[in-house]
């Protein structure tokens, strides 16, 4: 993963009628990663995204998106950035293909190129002719307009529309809202594959599990302020274990001798025994050393795991402190 920044915002502020919606927000998103923007409803996620797209002007502060300022050079930003709004809408009297072609037209893509890309993206999101036929039944063209699409199909068409301009950065606002579990999985797989193709993804959601599955790093917003930001695993350790690693080892009848040996390992901060389980807090990932110590002292190594921090834990911790 390269370390260049796709987005960098400093002191971003937005007020609506005197109410501060986004309050001196600082945000960095690295290129080619999936960044999750989290926060409860009304935390300012959508407003932040709109400011980064140049659809809303910030009251204070500055943003740089792919090296351009969305306020001063909106077209340069919009040419390379795709945006899937929260409530995605299409021209319901047109077919999927016609909707996509209109967007391609607005992007100045030539007719032939647009046709080719339309085929390509429709295939990516699973909305080819035969798949639409399957969902809607074999009807005449006039009846296959987007108005007849289900919520999930529209959402997928939204992703197709975002991808047709081959963006370097996409903003997805609540992309999984209203989808069934199968649709969510397909969508998440699609999102996870985007960074490999050179597209940075900014994902806003409060579906923590989904975010954890695809995001490399996250930022949590609350009342317009950035509460915490960084890579998921690092955040978990900092938030919940004071920056330590927790390793749990299950063995049989661990004796004082074993505990002493483990305590003697470099980097081990403490060992606690609860029955057959030893919980060891360390400064680094010492699984290799710990397992070696257990085996060399003739104890069976039944199970060993390093505690993973779920996003739920992190999220709840920050909102309990509020």
């Amino acid at each position, binding site marked *: 993963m390269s370390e260049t920044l796709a987005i960098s915002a400093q002191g971003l502020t937005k007020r*609506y009628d005197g109410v501060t919606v986004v309050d001196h927000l600082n945000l960095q998103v690295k290129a080619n990663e999936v960044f999750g923007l989290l926060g409860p409803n009304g935390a300012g996620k*959508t*407003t932040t995204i*709109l400011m980064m*797209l140049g*659809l*809303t002007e910030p009251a204070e502060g500055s943003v740089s998106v792919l090296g351009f300022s969305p306020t001063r050079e909106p*077209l*340069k930003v*919009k*040419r390379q*950035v*795709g*945006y899937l*709004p*929260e*409530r*995605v*809408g*299409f*021209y*319901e*009297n047109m077919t999927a293909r016609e909707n996509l072609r*209109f*967007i391609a*037209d*607005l*992007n*100045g893509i030539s007719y032939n190129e647009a046709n080719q890309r339309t085929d390509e993206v429709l295939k990516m999101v699973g909305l080819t002719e035969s798949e639409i036929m399957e969902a809607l039944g074999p009807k005449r063209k006039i009846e296959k307009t987007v108005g007849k699409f289900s919520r999930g199909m529209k959402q997928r068409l*939204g992703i197709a*529309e975002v991808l047709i*301009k081959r963006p370097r950065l996409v903003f997805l606002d609540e992309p999984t809202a209203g989808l069934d579990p199968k649709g969510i999985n397909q969508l998440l797989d699609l999102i996870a594959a985007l960074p490999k193709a050179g597209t940075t993804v900014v994902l806003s959601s409060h579906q923590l599990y989904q975010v954890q599955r695809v995001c490399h790093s996250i930022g949590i917003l609350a009342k317009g302020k950035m509460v915490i930001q960084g890579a998921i695993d690092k955040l978990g350790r900092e938030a919940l274990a004071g920056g330590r690693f927790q390793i749990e080892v299950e063995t049989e009848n661990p004796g004082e001798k074993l505990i002493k040996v483990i305590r003697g390992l470099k980097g081990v901060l403490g060992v606690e025994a609860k029955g057959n389980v030893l919980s060891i807090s360390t400064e680094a990932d010492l699984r290799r050393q710990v397992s070696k110590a257990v085996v060399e002292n003739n104890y069976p190594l039944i199970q060993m795991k390093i505690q993973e921090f779920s996003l739920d834990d992190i999220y709840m911790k920050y909102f309990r402190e509020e």
Partner: protein
Amino acid sequence: MVAIIRKELADYVTSIRFLGFMLLVTVLSITGLMAAAQGIRAANLPQGIVFLGLFTTAGVQVPIPSLSYLVSLLVPLIGIALGFDAINSERSSGTLSRVLSQPIYRDSVINGKFLAGVVILSIMVGTMLLLVSGYGMRMIGVPPTHEEVIRLFLYFVVTIFYGAFWMGLAILFSILFRRVAASLLFSLALWLFFSIFIMLIAPAIANALVPTAEGVQAEVVRNYELQRTILLFSPNYLFQEATTVILVPLVRTLGMVTSSIQPYWLRNPLSLGQSILVVWPHITGLISLSAVCFAVSYILFMRQEIRAT
């Protein structure tokens, strides 16, 4: 912006609304022709302006209104129908934010919609004028003179501006109101006010302010002038006066003429330049009205927040 115009045109042309209005235009042309067939002989127009009579004569035995009157009533409705859901329907269906996140300037959306509307309006009015001209020429057997062609073209342009004003107003309401029903109702209410109610209110206000009980001539003149001043606030009245003078070269003035002068009037048409001179303020008024309407919508749209909710 070309992409938006193209899409809007395709939308209009394939919509039921457009089909309905094309039907209306046909009916309008037929009605106008019937009125002319009834009344053009009785109108006894001097040579050189007979062809224009096709558009301005009303039926005599059977009261059929003239084509120019029908147009003054219905062009606003076409304009409103083209504009009343321009912005708010896109906003409520969630397409506006998607379109605006594409690499286009924000004003191309509203410019494209307005221009596409003007194109559709021109197609409709043009169709009607050509239909009536063609069949009318066959009916009366008198070809138009050069001057009549120019007058008709001028009429066409003024009608487009008039329609564009109502479309601009409807677009303005579609920006102001989030709900399509509200913008439609407000546009129709204004249309009703300017085309009917102001005709009832103007005499009432004039009589209240300048009573003509004593029948003094100066009072009667002042009363009439006040009435007309109030009526001129109505774009419908402006349009009717302007097109009457453009299409009926016999009209020499729009002001009040005392009955002592009338017998001395020659019944010969004004030249084109003189007619235009009479309605110059009307034409500039109409053009500026549509320009102001569009400018206000433009500014509001540029400053409006794009949030979906």
